[in-house]
């Protein structure tokens, strides 16, 4: 019968008073346990896989259609085994599915279209929405096997381009412009595409406008699942995570510094926002820069 993690810790603590040989034997048993405890969460493999594929789409460049059978990664034709990895409609479509799952959808709901590498969505997949969107918008996941269509790649690309623009506007202290850009994105691309990034960016824009209540209403749920959101830790430091955010943290337009006389809280939120934007930029920018 195997010992529990706690038992192994207690045994090691006892062995700390024994001779070196006994301690080493106990330590080796504990380290064996540590290896198993340090394994990644079950879904991380597919989540990172999806993000690598998003990077692959990015590398294909905004003006070129992403080839379905050629290697996509970094836009560099590369007859390597990675080309095979990414090659084929089924894999690509599955990657997009998983990429969208990364954006706050539930894998279980998509099992039918992901499983077995079959990209065809013969039945509409149910995807939870994280924000309002016109009912007439066709979700990339919603109909007629659209996941198998290369038209979804431009959708992802459009979403990324809009997100980057909105984030640039935030950096320029133009939250209204950022919100308009996000509205334009909502009108073009279904809400589940990069949903988390869109939610966080919109929340930051609302913070900048001094509307902390709306920001919290929009993104507060991300704080409740820190292990699922890569942004939760930083988001917690923004106005979304500040329960008593009394005033706007908005900096003057075109100013690269915080508002004169800004509070410590304003400074903290400013840093948090910059950190969040950095995180999103890292996740959606060229890693080879």
């Amino acid at each position, binding site marked *: 019968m195997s010992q529990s993690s706690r038992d192994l810790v207690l045994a090691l603590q006892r062995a*700390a008073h024994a001779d070196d040989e006994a301690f080493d034997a106990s330590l080796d048993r504990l380290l064996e346990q540590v290896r198993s405890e340090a*394994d990644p969460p079950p879904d991380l493999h597919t989540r*990172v896989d999806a993000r*690598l594929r998003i990077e692959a789409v990015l590398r294909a460049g905004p003006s070129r259609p992403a080839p379905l059978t050629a290697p996509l990664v970094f836009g560099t034709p590369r007859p390597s*085994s990675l080309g*095979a990895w990414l090659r084929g409609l089924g894999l690509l479509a599955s990657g997009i599915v998983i990429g969208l799952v990364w954006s706050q959808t539930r894998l279980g709901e998509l099992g039918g279209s992901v499983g077995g590498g079959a990209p065809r969505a013969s039945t509409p997949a149910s995807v939870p929405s994280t924000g309002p969107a016109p009912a007439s918008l066709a979700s990339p996941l919603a109909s007629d096997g659209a996941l198998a269509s290369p038209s979804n790649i431009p959708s992802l690309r459009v979403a990324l381009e809009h997100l980057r623009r909105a984030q640039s506007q935030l950096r320029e202290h133009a939250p209204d412009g950022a919100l308009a850009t996000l509205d334009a994105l909502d009108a073009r691309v279904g809400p589940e595409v990069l949903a988390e990034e869109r939610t966080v960016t919109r929340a930051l824009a609302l913070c900048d406008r001094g509307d902390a209540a709306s920001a919290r209403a929009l993104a507060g749920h991300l704080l409740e699942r820190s292990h699922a959101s890569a942004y939760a830790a930083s988001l917690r430091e923004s106005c979304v995570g500040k329960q008593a955010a009394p005033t706007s943290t908005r900096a003057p337009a075109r100013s690269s510094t915080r508002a004169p006389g800004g509070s410590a809280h304003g400074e903290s939120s400013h840093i948090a926002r910059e950190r969040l934007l950095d995180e999103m930029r890292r996740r959606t920018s060229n890693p080879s820069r």
Partner: protein
Amino acid sequence: MPLGFEALYRDHFDFTYRTLQHLGVPAASLPDAVQEVWLAVHQQLNRFEGRSTYRTWLFAIALNTARNHWRWQRRHGGTTDLSDDLVDAAAGPEQQHAGREALGLVGQFLNTLDEPRRVLFVSQLLEELNADETAQLLGIERQQVYHRVRDLRRSFKRWLAAREAAAQ
């Protein structure tokens, strides 16, 4: 025969995750960090010359990635304690990560180590890399690896005894 990216990713994804975690990348940053590792792997795979094992090569990439995260955190005013999550996991017998007490305990000890000793502990005791390649990673002789690992074990023992004494 060289491994393709897919096979490498499938076989070594968990290894890179564990390595980053043990090297002190906080849990919230692990998905980003592991992604960075694999992007770098892809970029460099065609230049891999087979002079080390894949595991050692991946370990070196993970180490560089962890260093980048440390620098980024320091620059952005983040915590300087690089394994808060592990520390929290070992905060006490009723800790929130129940069932992973061993991981928490080792995480606490790792946080007491400087970088070279931490790298040595992770590479030799946790991931059991080849001693020659660990020596190469750290720029030391193979024999020194053995000596330092033995010292690390003794340090762990002393640390445990001191910890227990302090708790009483």
